[in-house]
């Protein structure tokens, strides 16, 4: 009996099929929301699923000069990391499948694995566009990672624990953290957009400049796995931020509502701005993002030391 639960958790819920299907649904919702904000109709409900199935059915072309093991293996590692990360977040409002002290750090690193895999995949190929895209992806990783971690640390400091499940439980019983630390919320949400390479932070994948960035040479199965990995990360990231800042996720209805609201805000932010150049992104993060996150943390540490209970 002890071995059945982990296998179910990996394959069906909360990782595996549930989060794959959920990722596709959230990608559709994101695209539909952006379309509505741009005064157009957007795709039908099965579009992301159709894209995924079509890509799986296509031939995977392995270009000359790449390391074939890395080429085929990197998308699998990226998807695996994203799926593993979803084991530790309160998916669908239920308690995380596995939790231990310090799983916040592990989850954040697993979520960054995708970007590292994209960077490696781009550096692997000989294509100019891939190299430029990989450089940009890794540059962006270095710039938003610190503020994002600091912003997620804020609720952890207040809750006094590194365990995501316990932080979730803390958020449910206390005042919503978005009220207590609004700056941290903004940094975390924008950091999530940077991690997922959503516009305006899509310089690593700028369609009009470098075709498709690091993923230019990918086709067929590899591309399908990268794309669905990104959707899974979207779902996991939204769950994490709404669990921390929007008063915790206690049941599936709240899960859908809160992550839906976050998705709406993200879609709004995506449609309002032009794409930032990579040097502007780095400048923005290191000058404004990191400072804001640090300031927020400072305020929190001072408050906690003074014993103010929130």
């Amino acid at each position, binding site marked *: 009996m002890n071995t059945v639960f982990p296998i179910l958790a990996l394959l069906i819920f909360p990782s595996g099929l549930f989060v794959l299907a959920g990722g596709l649904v959230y990608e559709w919702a994101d695209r539909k929301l952006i*379309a*509505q*904000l*741009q*005064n*157009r*109709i*957007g795709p039908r409900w099965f579009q992301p699923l159709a894209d995924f199935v079509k890509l799986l059915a296509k031939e995977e072309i392995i270009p000359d000069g790449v390391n074939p093991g890395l080429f085929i293996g990197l998308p699998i590692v990226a998807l695996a990391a994203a799926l593993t990360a979803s084991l530790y977040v309160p998916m669908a409002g239920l308690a995380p499948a596995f939790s231990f002290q310090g799983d916040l750090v592990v989850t954040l690193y697993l979520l960054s694995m995708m970007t590292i895999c994209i960077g490696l995949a781009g550096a692997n190929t000989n294509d100019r566009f891939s190299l430029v895209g990989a450089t940009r992806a890794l540059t962006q990783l270095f710039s938003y990672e610190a503020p994002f971690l600091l912003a997620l640390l804020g609720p952890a400091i207040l809750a006094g624990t590194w365990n995501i499940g316990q932080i979730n439980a803390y958020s449910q019983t206390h005042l919503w953290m978005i009220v207590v630390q609004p700056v941290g919320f903004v940094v975390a949400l924008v950091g999530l957009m940077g991690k997922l390479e959503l516009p305006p932070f899509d310089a690593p994948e700028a369609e009009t400049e470098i075709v498709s960035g690091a993923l230019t040479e990918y086709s067929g199965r590899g591309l399908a796995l990268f794309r669905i990995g990104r959707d899974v990360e979207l779902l996991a990231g939204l769950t994490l931020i709404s669990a921390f800042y929007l008063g915790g996720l206690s049941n599936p209805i709240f899960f859908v509502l809160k992550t839906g609201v976050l998705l709406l805000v993200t879609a*709004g932010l995506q*449609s*309002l*701005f032009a794409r930032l150049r990579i040097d502007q992104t780095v400048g923005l993060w290191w000058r404004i993002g990191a400072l804001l996150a640090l300031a927020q943390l400072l305020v929190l540490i001072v408050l906690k030391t003074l014993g103010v209970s929130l």
Partner: protein
Amino acid sequence: MTLGAMLSDVLTSFFKKNSTRRYPFEKLPAPNRLRGKLFWDPAKCTGCQLCIKDCPSNAIELIVLDKVSKRFVLRYHVDRCTYCGQCVVNCRFKCLNMSSTDWELASTRKEPFTVYYGKDADVDALLAKATAPGGSATNEG
């Protein structure tokens, strides 16, 4: 310096219907001057062929069955036509006009793209000549 100058557009669009026209379920009526498929009225044609001389893409041909009794057949290549309307302008007797309702001309077969206009008897005679062994549907045949 504003951040998000299109905010007003984005917010209003969220609450109103989107601007995508759901063709083919919703079709706008075409304006009167739309230059759709060409139609020919054989009753007034005198066979001057001014329309054919100025067609930029050789889309119309006049096949003369009998010049004296004015029996003509007009062969119109719908796929070659550029819908410029020069033939309509050239005709002094207003035999030609471009439809403003018949503009969905796509087809999966080649047959709809060659249209024969004329009195029924004339067209039948021409096609009979074309399908007879050794015959062809041109002026020489």
